[in-house]
């Protein structure tokens, strides 16, 4: 029995063998890793498509692909990155792996439902990607599937839309699972305000997943109804309203940005106190701002539609609400910086990712205010400025937090350490590539280059060359990071339980954890970031 207890979850195959022991496993840790492998694979496809776009934009006119292919590529890049990578991203991978451990549970509340979520995710992804290989060619509408063009194009819209619809179910089921897990399975003594911040952000995210995702599901079904049955929801020729589509789409898709960014903020809130070796500054303020972002984030969708022809009253309201939602985000940044104040900072790779997250997230956030203001939005709407802004938030925010999280929890997940020097080299090259790739887009946007354009006038040539070179540097950094992590997963030095000196519960279990995480469910009697000296972890 004792031997059984100390086997890691990787060695506990259950009744299946080989790959079946993974794809039929209800262990939250294996499911988290299944998501990781799927998401990273889709991410790499998305990166290649993005790099191809940048290569095309290196010079005016045709460089490597034709205009129709370009339209299809930016659509697929968006669909893959949004629906298959960043929306499931941190919650599905690190939420699944770590949530039960961080709250002192043996698994999530509904393990079978958890496995079903992964299967639905894979099924939805296959349906969405099948649009690539069918007769009409991949969709060319952009990932937003805007009416009325989405009803008129002859490309394979329906598989892409149905894929996104199915993926929504996976998201909802994961949200339900996490909320019930947090309500019902917290360890004895772990009151709400003794819960670590990453589970708190998963809780806020869970509510958004449950309440917002059905709206996009219904909207996508309405597209199918309009295309197949000619029901006039959105097409003016059939008596519909195209702006209604934009409302419904963004009622989901803006909160979806918070599905992406809240767990990213949660991961950063775990990394910073560990490497500052100091209790997080303003724990309750961070919790309340998490819930505030989740709540207010529902009411700001209209800032994507300032030039669509909405009423003036709606414009003012959405602009005001957009400025309001910036406040809780700023509170978090203030608290993270406050935590670093006078701290003995441990300069390790996860910390570099967290620090660079703060840098790029601030640029993304502040450029968002320029887009949230009505007057400047009219100038910047649908320009490269918007592309730069959301890449700074989504790639800079979520991507950097994901990288920070994987470097932070790598020893826990794989039970081995990675080569720190190589990891830091990968980070600095990636960071330089990222800034070189996206910063010129702000200038391109302000000077008038529209987004999603295949061709451009000569004056935009210089910044586009710089941006393309940035994409190569970023990919070089990515190759170093992936090589280092894969190599270290097999050959890295063995990690002990708590290599970074963290205080949350995952650092009290084996690396990698056993099947049931804890031999005995722990009793929690201290705050999650208690860094007083000589404290038993």
């Amino acid at each position, binding site marked *: 029995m004792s031997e059984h207890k100390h086997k890691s979850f990787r060695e506990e195959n259950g009744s299946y063998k080989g790959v079946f022991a993974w794809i039929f496993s209800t262990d939250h840790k294996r499911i988290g890793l299944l998501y990781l492998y799927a998401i990273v694979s889709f991410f790499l496809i998305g990166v290649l498509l993005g790099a191809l776009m940048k290569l095309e934009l290196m010079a005016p006119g045709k460089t490597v692909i034709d205009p129709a292919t370009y339209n299809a590529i930016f659509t697929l890049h968006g669909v893959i990155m949004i629906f298959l990578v960043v929306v499931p991203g941190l919650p599905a991978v690190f939420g699944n792996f770590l949530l039960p451990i961080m709250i002192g549970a043996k698994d999530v509340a509904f393990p079978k439902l958890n496995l079903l979520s992964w299967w639905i995710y894979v099924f939805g992804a296959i349906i969405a990607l099948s649009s690539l290989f069918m007769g009409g060619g991949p969709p060319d509408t952009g990932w937003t599937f805007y009416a009325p063009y989405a009803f008129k194009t002859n490309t394979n819209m329906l598989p892409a839309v149905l894929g996104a619809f199915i993926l929504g179910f996976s998201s909802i089921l994961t949200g339900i699972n996490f909320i019930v897990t947090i309500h019902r399975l917290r360890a004895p003594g772990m009151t709400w305000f003794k819960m670590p911040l990453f589970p708190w952000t998963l809780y806020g995210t869970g509510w958004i997943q449950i309440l917002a995702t059905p709206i996009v599901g219904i909207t996508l079904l309405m597209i199918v109804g309009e295309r197949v049955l000619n029901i006039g929801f959105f097409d003016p020729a059939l008596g519909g309203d195209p702006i209604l589509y934009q409302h419904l789409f963004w009622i989901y898709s803006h909160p979806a940005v918070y599905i992406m960014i809240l767990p990213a903020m949660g991961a950063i809130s775990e990394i910073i106190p560990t490497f500052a070796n100091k209790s997080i500054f303003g724990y309750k303020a961070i919790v309340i701002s998490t819930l505030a972002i989740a709540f207010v984030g*529902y009411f700001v969708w209209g800032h994507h539609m300032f030039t669509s022809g909405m009423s003036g009253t709606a414009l003012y309201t959405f602009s005001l609400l957009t400025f309001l939602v910036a406040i809780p985000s700023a509170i978090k940044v203030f608290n993270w910086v406050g935590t670093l104040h006078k701290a003995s900072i441990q300069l390790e790779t996860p910390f570099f990712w967290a620090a660079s997250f703060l840098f790029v997230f601030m640029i993304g956030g502040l450029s968002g205010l320029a887009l949230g203001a009505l007057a400047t939005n009219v100038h910047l709407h649908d320009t490269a400025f918007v592309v730069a802004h959301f890449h700074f938030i989504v790639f800079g925010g979520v991507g950097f937090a994901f990288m920070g999280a994987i470097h932070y929890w790598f020893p826990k997940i794989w039970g081995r350490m990675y080569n720190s020097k190589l990891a830091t080299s990968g980070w600095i090259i990636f960071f330089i590539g990222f800034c070189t790739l996206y910063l010129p887009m702000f200038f391109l946007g302000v000077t008038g280059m529209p987004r999603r354009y295949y061709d451009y006038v000569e004056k935009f040539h210089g910044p586009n060359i710089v941006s393309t070179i940035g994409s190569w540097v970023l990919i070089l950094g990515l190759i170093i990071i992936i090589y280092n992590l894969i190599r270290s997963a097999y050959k890295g030095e063995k990690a002990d339980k708590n290599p970074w000196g963290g205080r949350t519960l995952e650092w009290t279990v084996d690396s990698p954890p056993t099947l049931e995480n804890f031999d005995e469910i722990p009793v929690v009697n201290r705050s999650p970031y208690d860094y007083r000296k000589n404290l038993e972890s």
Partner: protein
Amino acid sequence: MNKHTENHVVPYSLYIYVLAGLLLLTMLSVGVTHIELANLTVFTAILLASIKSCLVLVFFMHLKFDNRILQILVTAVFILVALVLFITFLDYNYR
């Protein structure tokens, strides 16, 4: 003993009254369609539907006897949906 695990014996008469209320509200929802309410048409329809949903949630789904946290969560969700609809109509009513 946890409040939501206690047994609550609800008299059948209460269910009958709730059912009658639901039928009455359904008739009312059909009835108001004959009145010209202009901008208030959708508001009235949603209001009546919301009252009916609340009756089902509170009595048939036993929310009335459930623990406080669930009552708060369901109320918060109702407020959220109401606000989303309200803001959407700031566009449609003032366009």
